[in-house]
């Protein structure tokens, strides 16, 4: 199959918008997929509904981003082809969103870290020089506000709740923390995108994210880890975790098993 990544001959400026859109779309797709794994087995009926609702928003966002990405390439691929026919190395999502769900607390803490980035990020993108990107971001921003409200409130409740819940949240924090730094690493694509006014540099979101995270962790009685170590390789596609391949094997099974069929 064709690859979607940067080819050796292409320059950054030629592929930057496509890559940028894949990064947005793949984050939403992979996280939406992870949340959908909770279907029917959440800790309470209200949580089942909220998890499905968030997953649904994210899959909707993924569709919009990937449809835009398709407009940037001159082959006949559709948004569904991008979702269902790329291999792991062509995915451009953060490692944070592809690691397994763990327990409910870990799932919501991961959601919170992502939401705390997305809210200022989408807000900035809604001012993008690219109108299509601005429109998608404006729509997604409304959803992200609700997602952040819920994930922050849940992290606070579970961190503060019982001794057991506090321990579980501390463990989840230790596990997830090294995956948060990748959100703020700028590369050549980000620099180009910033130079043409499509989006700010991801690193410029750090302060807003820190503020949200510090406030919520403190209300949750959780100590912010001191480590600044960050795993990376997801946004560039250089080195995903082992988990993404399994996720894709499941997600793509029908499209891969019945080539050319429509559903």
């Amino acid at each position, binding site marked *: 199959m064709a690859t979607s990544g940067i080819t050796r001959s292409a320059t950054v400026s030629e592929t930057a918008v496509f890559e940028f859109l894949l990064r947005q779309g793949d984050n939403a797709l992979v996280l939406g997929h992870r949340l959908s794994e909770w279907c029917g087995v959440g800790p309470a009926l209200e949580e089942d509904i909220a998890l*499905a609702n968030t997953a649904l928003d994210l899959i909707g966002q993924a569709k919009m981003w990937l449809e835009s990405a398709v407009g940037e390439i001159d082959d006949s691929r559709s948004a569904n082809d991008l979702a*269902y026919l790329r291999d792991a190395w062509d995915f451009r999502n953060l490692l944070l969103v592809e690691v397994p769900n763990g327990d409910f607390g870990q799932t919501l803490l991961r959601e919170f870290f992502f939401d705390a980035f997305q809210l200022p990020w989408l807000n900035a993108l809604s001012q993008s020089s690219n109108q299509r990107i601005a429109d998608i971001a404006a729509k997604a921003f409304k959803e992200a506000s609700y997602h952040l409200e819920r994930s922050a409130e849940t992290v606070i409740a579970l961190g503060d709740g019982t001794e057991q819940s506090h321990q579980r949240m501390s463990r989840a924090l230790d596990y997830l923390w090294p995956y948060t730094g990748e959100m703020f690493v700028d590369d050549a694509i980000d620099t180009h995108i910033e130079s043409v006014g499509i989006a700010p540099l991801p690193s410029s979101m750090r302060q807003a994210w820190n503020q949200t995270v510090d406030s919520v962790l403190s209300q949750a009685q959780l100590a912010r880890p001191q480590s600044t170590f960050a795993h990376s390789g997801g946004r560039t596609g250089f080195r995903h975790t082992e988990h993404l391949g399994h996720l894709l094997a499941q997600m793509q099974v029908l499209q891969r098993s019945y080539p050319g*069929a429509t559903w």
Partner: protein
Amino acid sequence: MYAQLVKSEASAEDPIRLAEFQARIDRGEKIEPKDWMPAGYRKTLIRQIGQHAHSEIVGQLPEGNWITRAPTLERKANLLAKVQDEAGHGLYLYCAAETLGVSRDELFEMLHNGKMKYSSIFNYPTLTWADMGAVGWLVDGAAIMNQVPLQRTSYGPYARAMVRICKEESFHQRQGYHLLLHMMKGSEAQQRMCQDALNRMWFPALMMFGPSDKDSVHSAQSMAWKIKMNTNDELRQKFVDETVRQAEFLGLQIPDDALRWNESTGHYDFSEPDWDEFHDVISGNGPCNHERLEARKSAWNDGAWVREARMAHAMKNSERRLAAAE
């Protein structure tokens, strides 16, 4: 039909009050939570609404089985939305049951310890993507047959829940049907999946209406109370009459050699489901009874720490507010 074999209770109460109650129902009045009602009416409704609610939440599982494998972004979103609707139906129905004096936790407890049942249909597996179409078309289709008349049931909160649920169920049914319609225009393998789904689900769908009227022991009292609006066989016949034509349009073969149009009755004749299989399934020996119940029990047990933590946090918050006010 999400409620099967609901045992109805006669009431040994003041005959005058019983007669007045029956007269209200006969006049088409709605019974509301604070109204006097016979203990048997209350008990029967709790069983029926509880079973219906359980069916909604257990019903998330066979479809949830395919959410992570849905073949397009649109199908994934549709299926997620459908399953989310079902959880929402569960929520309304547990709330309706709560108005009768039973808590959601108590109903869960009875589901988990086997004292309450859910519809037999959810004890069958979903084996291919076509099952997502067949579940919408047949299972939601059968549920609608039962639930449309229940919009006129005598208990107010149940009737009102049904109005909203029916709207969503008919959307699900159309969605399922269109999924199959699309696949039937596809490859041989896709067509085979559709026929295979119908072969496996036809008789289990017919079982959803419960045993034949001649063996249905609980109907008379429930019908007098307008908790049950039609007999099992009436609803089953109506379902067959509508579904046969839909199957023909899809190009699918109903797996019943005895199925034929009967000019004199104006209905289709069809074979009865295997009632031994039905009794096996409701007594715990269906293909997925073990998996379904275990999935619900472990979700509940694994989630206990979350529910406890939320309670503890709420308590701490109110203590903090009190302390701050002093």
